[in-house]
């Protein structure tokens, strides 16, 4: 689908304007809605504090389990709701293809960097928005990563990612039992979120601002 973009020019400001114009015409929600989705996304991540280094790197060290608990709960609840929404025609599937090499190599690189940076591409910008300069440096590294990926996509990365083995979903593997599979998946994933033992690694810089009797690490 080509989107009609009228703004001319190739300087940075024109291209940012073209970005907004593209979103207005691509039919995935109004510009205001997409912006609002971003605000809520940033607000939830900030308010739950999962953008902190101590949460993701803390999970890598198995000293904090807030991120997996929140992620699994969100997935468990959404999977059931979304399946019935799709069946009722209120949403569509957007399944990513199974590129074995891409998923294995990409997932490995992603896991290594997530443990070291202590952020992911969604939580990183929220950290920058609350003043974390080290994450800004990480984002600049990310821009160079994006540059290299774009420059060598056709010659190097695309062949390395391999051929698609299809866009499968779990329910499609059990024809005739789709509803049961969805319910079991949703309930099991939600239960995983609940039974993962709650552990927290706190940041002394945040705790020191609190009076003694309000510190979550002391009661």
């Amino acid at each position, binding site marked *: 689908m080509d989107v009609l973009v009228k703004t001319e020019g190739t300087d940075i400001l024109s291209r940012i304007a073209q970005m907004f114009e593209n979103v207005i015409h691509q039919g995935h929600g109004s510009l205001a809605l997409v912006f609002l989705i971003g605000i809520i996304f940033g607000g939830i991540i900030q308010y739950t504090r999962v*953008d902190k280094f101590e949460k993701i790197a803390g999970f890598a060290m198995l000293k904090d389990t807030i991120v997996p608990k929140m992620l699994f709960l969100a997935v468990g609840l959404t999977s059931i709701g979304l399946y019935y929404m799709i069946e009722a025609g209120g949403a569509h599937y957007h399944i990513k293809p199974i590129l074995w090499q891409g998923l294995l190599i990409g997932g490995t690189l992603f896991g290594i960097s997530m443990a070291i940076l202590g952020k992911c591409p969604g939580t990183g910008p929220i950290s920058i928005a609350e003043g974390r300069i080290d994450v800004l440096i*990480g984002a600049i590294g990310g821009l160079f990563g994006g540059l290299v990926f774009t420059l060598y996509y*056709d010659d190097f990365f695309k062949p390395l990612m391999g051929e698609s083995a299809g866009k499968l979903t779990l329910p499609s593997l059990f024809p005739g039992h789709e509803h049961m599979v969805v319910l079991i998946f949703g309930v099991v994933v939600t239960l995983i979120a609940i039974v993962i033992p709650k552990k927290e690694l706190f940041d002394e810089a945040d705790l020191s601002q609190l009076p003694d009797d309000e510190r979550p690490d002391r009661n």
Partner: protein
Amino acid sequence: MNRLPWWMGGILMSGLLLLTFSVFGADRPIGASTYVPYFAGIIFDLDPEKYSYLKDISNPGSWEGVMLFGALVGGFVTSVFITRSFRFSLIPSGWKKYKNNSVLSRLFWSFISGFIMIIGARMAGGCTSGHFMSGMSQMAISSMIFGGVVLVVVIVTGRLFYNVKEK
């Protein structure tokens, strides 16, 4: 340190995912890594006509770009007025405790891991948002493979990279 409990965060995030997927919302998943090469294309002044990847991501890249602007505003406002956690810092407390006290070391590793992270996410076709949250919510097999690999590698890396033993 005002904050929401994890279960409230999970419920709210689920509501946001359903709104975004819904035809009354954006009729697409939430993603948060395609915007990086999209912005790289703009900042390094690459011609989208010349690079096939920039052509492929022009729609999702711009969508996520606008969402990112919203996320920066949402994150900034929440950190200033609600959690009051806004402050400039160069090195996280957890890094000092479990890695080292060197700002230079933190900035070096930040740059390197940011670089690798985007290459990894784009090779896999998604990140924590696009694969783990949006993809697993659709019960996509590709996202479950990604989620499994990432969970294992994150824990192994954490064990090897940090001095995990309590000091």
